[in-house]
Every structure is written in C-alpha cells, then in structure tokens.
C-alpha cells in the first residue's frame, strides 16, 4: 500500500512534480502514462528515495519514507536502463544482491531466471551482454526477492516479443498474488491487459487517476490507447 501526499519537486525552472496526491492499494496494477518529461520517472524516483521531494510525503505501508532505507526491502525495481559493473558476472550480481538483502536461498523467486534462461549464462560478464539481455537481468532482479511492491519503468522496451510476453505473464501472476504494481510504458497495448488503474501525468500535474473500467465507460472506448487519446483531445479542447 502506498500513499502520496502533496508531492512537489522542482528542477531549476522545471516543475517536475506539481502537488501529486494519490493512493495505491495492494492488488492494483497502476499504469503511469504521460508524454515525455511529464514527471513519470521523477515520481518513481521519489518513491524509491533517489529524488528528494521539495514538499509532501510518501507513505509505504503506512510509514513515511525518510532517511531509513529499510522500506526498500519490500520494493522490487526495474530501471529503464540497467547498467551493471563491467566485470561482474550475472551469477555474481544475483549473489551480491542476495548478500545485500540478507535473503535466505528459500525465499527468492527464481522464476524469471529460469524462464529467461539466465542460469545458463551465469558465468558471462555484464559488459558482454546485449541491451535486451541486460533488460532481462533487470527484470529477473526486480522479481527476485518476492517484493510486495513492484516498480517497473518501461519494462518491455528493448525486449523481443517472446520475452515481452513472458514478462507480461509474470506481471499477471504477481497481480494475482495481491501485489501493488506500478508500470510506466509508452506501449499502451501492453498495458491494456495488465492495468487495473490509469494515472495520467502531464507537465508534472496529475490529470486523473481512474480505474480502467470507469475510463472505458466515460470515453466509450474499449482500447486503452483510444480512451487516453479521447481524454487528451477533450483536455486540449477544454483548455
């Protein structure tokens, strides 16, 4: 569960986040949508504590995030671009993460490692991997510790169609386990099957946060892409 209250962040001249208020519950799959530079990544980074907000609070499972980093042990994060130490091997990376999180062998979720067939290349150094394989490593790492909250930044970008399907299946599976999942993506058709709610950001402001059925009802469109387009048109004609 996560609550965001009056969150504001300014980068010099740019108001990256402008008074965001939101409430996410377990079992929801929130898709964060918005044009480039609308503040999606800034929001995600604020939740992870990488960006320090100017004002406002974020509560994870009821507790405000501040200097205590322990709340992050319940979050799995898949970055937009994953880069790892050049000379580190894949197996080594996973061992290191297990070491850092102090997770016993029994607790980890190796599902993605198996499905992406990463075990067989455990001895490969990171610098030799292609962008797509690195993306698979990032995905496997996000799910590895069986976290309550998953934050996926452009998860399917750079993945081939087969891997992309595998990842989507996994997200569905985790959704069933009553986890909170936040996804940003520009590929709206990917989100169609996954999302339960849509959060739309523009120029740092939250335009709306609605569950997907309401959105479909209001716009009369079945596809998420068309529904969003309809809302955007309405916004521009009003403004």
């Amino acid at each position, binding site marked *: 569960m996560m609550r965001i209250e009056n969150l504001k962040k300014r*980068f010099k001249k740019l108001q990256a986040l402008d008074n965001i208020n939101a409430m996410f519950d377990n079992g929801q799959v929130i898709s964060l949508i918005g044009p480039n530079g609308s503040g999606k990544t800034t929001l995600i*980074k604020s939740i*992870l*504590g*990488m*960006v*320090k907000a100017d004002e406002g609070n974020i509560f994870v499972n009821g507790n405000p995030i501040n*200097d205590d*980093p*322990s*709340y*992050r*042990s319940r*979050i799995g*994060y898949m*970055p937009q*671009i*994953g*880069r*790892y*130490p*050049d*000379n*580190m091997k894949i197996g*080594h990376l996973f061992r*290191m*993460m297990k*070491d*850092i*999180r102090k997770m016993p062998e029994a607790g980890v979720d190796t599902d993605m490692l198996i499905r992406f067939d990463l075990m067989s290349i455990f001895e490969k150094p990171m610098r030799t991997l292609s962008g797509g394989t690195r993306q698979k490593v990032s995905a496997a790492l996000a799910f590895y510790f069986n976290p309550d909250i998953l934050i996926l930044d452009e998860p399917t970008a750079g993945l081939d169609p087969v891997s992309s399907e595998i990842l989507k299946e996994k997200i569905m599976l985790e959704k069933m386990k009553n986890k909170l999942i936040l996804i940003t993506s520009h590929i709206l058709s990917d989100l169609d099957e996954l999302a339960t709610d849509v959060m739309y950001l523009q120029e740092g402001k939250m335009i709306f946060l609605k569950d997907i059925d309401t959105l479909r009802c209001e716009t009369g469109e079945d596809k998420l892409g068309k529904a969003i387009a309809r809302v955007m048109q309405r916004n521009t004609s009003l403004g």
Partner: protein
Amino acid sequence: MFKLTRYVLYDILRSKVVIAYTLFLFAVSIGLFQLEENQSKAILSLLNIVLIVVPLISLIFTTIHYYNSYEFIELMLSQPLSRTRILLSEYGGVALSLISSFMIGVGFPVLIYTFDATGLALLFTGIALTLAFTSIAFLASVKSRDKARGIGSALLLWFYFSLIYDGLVLLILFSFSDYPMEKFTLFLSALNPIDLGRIFIMLKMDVGALMGYTGALYKDFFGSGAGIIFTAGIMLLWVVIPLLLAVRVFRKKDL
C-alpha cells in the same frame, strides 16, 4: 558494511586500467632500482614519479569510475541501503584497489631493494596520497552531474596541486622575503598534500640540508616525533574532510 566494498573491489581489480597502472608502477620502480647504483638516488627519482602519477591516476580513475558506476549506484539506491553506506563502500573499493596497485607496483620493489625508513616513508606517502586524492575526486564527482565537467574539475585540481600551487608559494615567499617566513611556509605546506609528502621524504633522505635555513627548520620539525605525527595528522585530514563533504553532498543529491 563492507559487503558492497568487496564486490566493487572485485570488479575494479579485473579492470584493465588498474592492471596497467600496477604494471607501469612496477616497471618504473624496478627500472629505477636497476639503473641507479645509488639506492637513495633511485628513491628520489621514484619519489618524483610517485608525486606526479599517484595523484593524477587517483583523481582520473576515481572520477571515471564514479560516472561509469552511476547506474549501478542508482540500482544500489533502490535497495535497502543508506546513501552514506553506498558512497563509503564505493570509496573503499576504489581506494583499496588503487592502494593494492601501488603496493604491488612500488611497495614490492622498495621492500626488496631498500627496506629502510626512507622506503617506508615513500610507501606511507604513496598510500596517503592515494587516499587523499580519491577523496578529493569523489567530492568533485558528486558535485557535478556532468561527466565532462567532473573529469575536467578533477584535472584542474591536479594542475592546481602539482603545478600552480608551487608557483603561488614561490610568489608569496618572494614578495615577503624581508620577513621571517619559516613558520609560515610550514603552514603553507600543510595546504597541499603533495608538498607535504615531498618535504616529509626529502628530510628523511638527508637532502634537507640543501634547503638552507628553512631546510634546517624543517628538519628540526619533520625529523622529530611531533613532525611525523603532524604530517600523518594533516594527511588524515586531507583524506577525511573531502570524503565527509562528499558524503554530505551525496546524501542530499537527486539522482
């Protein structure tokens, strides 16, 4: 605390730059000891190389390493680890790998050829300079987001400490040559770790007498127990203060 350091160290020790640095230092040290009949002459030449190369490599390598690990640091930030711990672990990894390069490259030859007070003083200076300039480089890197600017400021700092500073000191001494400046120059040397290291070793080698009256004062001071504690203390400050500042900046930084 040091779990992460171990992995950073493991990664860096396999990098080609560190291996090349080790081999270079080793070749230079062995070469100088083989060429020079007189061991203290060899140490003097080695000292000059160490004073130039160690700060330069420490600054540049650390800065480049920091920017290359940027995404990795981000990944670590998404884990339940505090920022202070992440930065100190990175520091530990970089500093330890540079020190091990130095100890293999310079330490071994020195221990084999001239295992005496001067040799040990040279090793102490090398290690202290590595630690100090790694700290300074971390401060420069966390301060600027841009890679080019970060490396640029690291280079400028190196220019300042190894070239410009000497000029400034000469200028000051020259303009105030009518006044007794001995105590003051002692203070000035504390403002530059490279200078401090140089004076410290020179005096251990008994070439301090060549430095005239000031040299005598130095010798009096640096030769004594208090002088050694003073040098070590100032070096320690050069390691700790930039590192603490870097941690402070890093804790408040947006990544």
